[in-house]
């Protein structure tokens, strides 16, 4: 069995003196889709932000491609291929769609950037149509697509998705999940954080359930989905 591309061991994250995450460990095999599910405030986003270098963990070790990246700053991780699609999309509303995309290629040379952007436009034709519009004028679903597309420009080895279905209509959520499925078919490893536990588990290979900052259940996603206890506990959550 090959080593996981990303692994987190004993992660703890504090906000001030509040423990948001306690002793969380998980592994992400290369090419897999791993999901972290749980309620609002369970600590999912804190875990993701610690992995992508936006939060300094209190304890624990994060390993990416065999390197200890626990203390790497965010920009170095993006360059190394660990790219986040943040919660709430965080698109730059006053910049155009095209400018948003080219920011996704901050670390790329101009020559390869152009080709990559065209490639992304092919996958997201709606973004090509709207490339000259201010990103703030896009619909919620289009903004989410832009946020994902922008991350793809950086050619991630591991894509970290934080609540991509948030605030979207069920039909649009379907589209987002279809895009995620496409992305993993290209071989990109995906870590998906979701409140919509059922959807996320249905799409994932492995799942971890977070509850008040700790992992309460984990295992292959289809097993979790069939597990009475997990169903009991989490199907009530949207």
């Amino acid at each position, binding site marked *: 069995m090959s080593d996981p591309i990303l692994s987190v061991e004993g992660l703890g994250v504090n906000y001030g003196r509040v423990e948001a995450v306690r002793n969380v460990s998980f592994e992400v095999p290369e090419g897999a889709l791993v999901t972290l599910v749980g*309620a*609002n405030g369970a600590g999912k986003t804190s875990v993701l932000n610690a992995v992508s270098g936006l939060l300094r963990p209190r304890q624990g070790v994060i390993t990416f491609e065999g390197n200890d990246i626990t203390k790497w700053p965010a920009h170095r991780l993006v360059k190394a291929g660990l790219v986040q699609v943040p919660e709430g999309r965080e698109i730059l509303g006053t910049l155009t769609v095209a400018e948003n995309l080219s920011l996704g290629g901050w670390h790329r040379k101009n020559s390869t950037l152009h080709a990559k952007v065209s490639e992304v436009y092919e996958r997201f034709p709606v973004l090509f149509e709207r490339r000259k519009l201010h990103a703030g004028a896009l619909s919620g679903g289009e903004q989410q697509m832009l946020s994902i597309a922008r991350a793809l420009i950086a050619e991630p080895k591991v894509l970290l998705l934080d609540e991509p279905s948030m*605030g979207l209509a069920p*039909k649009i959520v379907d589209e987002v999940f279809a895009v995620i499925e496409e992305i993993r078919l290209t071989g990109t490893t995906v870590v998906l954080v979701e409140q919509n536990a*059922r959807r996320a588990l*249905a799409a994932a290979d492995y799942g971890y359930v977070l509850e*008040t900052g700790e992992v309460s259940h984990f295992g292959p996603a289809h097993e979790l989905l069939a597990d009475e*206890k997990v*169903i009991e506990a989490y199907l009530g959550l949207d």
Partner: protein
Amino acid sequence: MFADYTSLITLIALTAILAYSFYAVLIAGQLSLAQVGLASLAAFTSALVVPAEPLFGFIPPLAIGIVFGMFVGAIAAFILGLPVIRLRGVFLAIATLAFGEMVRIFLINQSWTNGAQGLSFSKLVGPGIAWIALAVVAYWFWRLSGSRLGRAFAAIREDELAATTMGIDVPRYRMASFVIAGAVAGLYGVLLAHFSRFADPNEFSFTAAVDGLVTAVVGGVTLFVGPILGSAFLSVLPEVQRVIGIDAGWIRPTISGVLLLVVILFLPGGLSGLIPRRKSAKRLIADPSLRPTLPALPAAGSELVSLSRLGKSYGGVHAVQSVDLTVNAGEVLGLIGPNGAGKTTLVNMVTALTPPTTGTGTVLGVPLSATTKAHRLAQAGVARTFQQIKLFNRLSALENVLVGGYRITQDTLLRRLLFLPSARRSEREAVAMASAQLIRVGLADKASNAAGDLSYGDQRRLEIARALASHPSLLVLDEPAAGMNHVEAASLSELIRSLAADGIAVLVIEHNVRMMLATCDRIMVLNFGEIIAFGKPGDIARDPRVLEAYLGSSGSDEDEEAASVLASENLAQVAADRDSDQSGHHSDPAPDGETNPEENR
């Protein structure tokens, strides 16, 4: 020996008084640089009224000057405050700085101030008077810090929006802190002029304002002795340097600069932050007999909220469209829907934080309009919690709940200044009521912890306790169970039912559908700003539109299909239990140990 230091000792007191005038605005979260300008106005105008001989033979000239100077300072601060009070942060600082400079330039160009040549004053102030004045000012701020007014200032500093929803009229209190600061600045100006016997308007410059601010900040604003510590430290420092012989022109400012930098970077609470806070100051009072009797809540079933076609749009986007709704005393009304469905916008309109763009509404007799102030609604009996927790993080849990009791307590500052027993009684009653709420939500053992240090779930509970402390008729909870585990969510559910049994109307937003079905009398489901279903929990759980919005529409995946069916059966069962449970209370005691509470169904 002492005589050598007379001047230093006096200046420590005077500088501390100036620092108190900055402290007075800083405790309410504002930064004003007008203080020395106000001081110079007071100083120079006092020269016009201070007589050479005692008035009527017994009122000392200085007393007249002080009263007049404080009055001038307060009035000038009020007039300055009228246009600038709505500015915040850096903008307020710049506007007040400009005012201070304008005063300076104005005074320099007046003949009665003798312009830049300066004006002579009689020497009326020595160390004794300076320290007596300082003692009086410090006493005022000491008594202020534990009063309802002092708590209101602290609440505004920590979170203006949350303070508004406690019923605190934020602009009025900000103005009050401005005027108090102006009076103290006036006192400083008059005392300084009559101590140094000479003043020219250029002494009251930007640099002097910065020095005063620095003194207040170095001392710290978390404790009333801060300004005295700051002044003593900064005044004695050069003296010490002189004595040990390292005061060559540039060394002194270098050392003070470095020290100031160290204090601001490494001592966020200033020097007074080094003093451990007395934990005994506010103890929980658990004795129920000390709680006062509160006015009765509206009779169960009476209509508290009535909305008619209420809507809100931002630009062209409809966050909420045309909602009709009534909420009655004693009922739990649930609001569910996917993220971004408009639930929070709706409750923001009900609590007057967001003005509606269409429709009408009345909440506890107050009509909702563009000009309805949130603190008015809070005064009428609306309390709420926030999706993004808004606690007063640096205040203790008990202090948070005490601020929550603002609506039903009386101000105690004047009585506290006189040490009247009734002030003590009022304070004890307030603490007793606050304690009751902390005990009710299960935070009794964390009363003295800073709110910001509590765990996420405890913060949620504290916010509920704070909201309950205002003895509300209508309680609005925005995602109260977020971050709670199942045992905690179950006990929250019971708490909500017991509040409703007391006669409070509860409007609750929550994602935990299972909990909502078990807790609410009626549930409204929003999606894209529109009501897609409204009714009893049992009907909601079976409604196909709700299932679609919540569980997704695609049914191609078999797992999903199965899960979806299972889910809806589960939910319907929970809801049916709830509907048949007329008392509203769960008869099963909360299970202990590892058992999942849901298994007791």
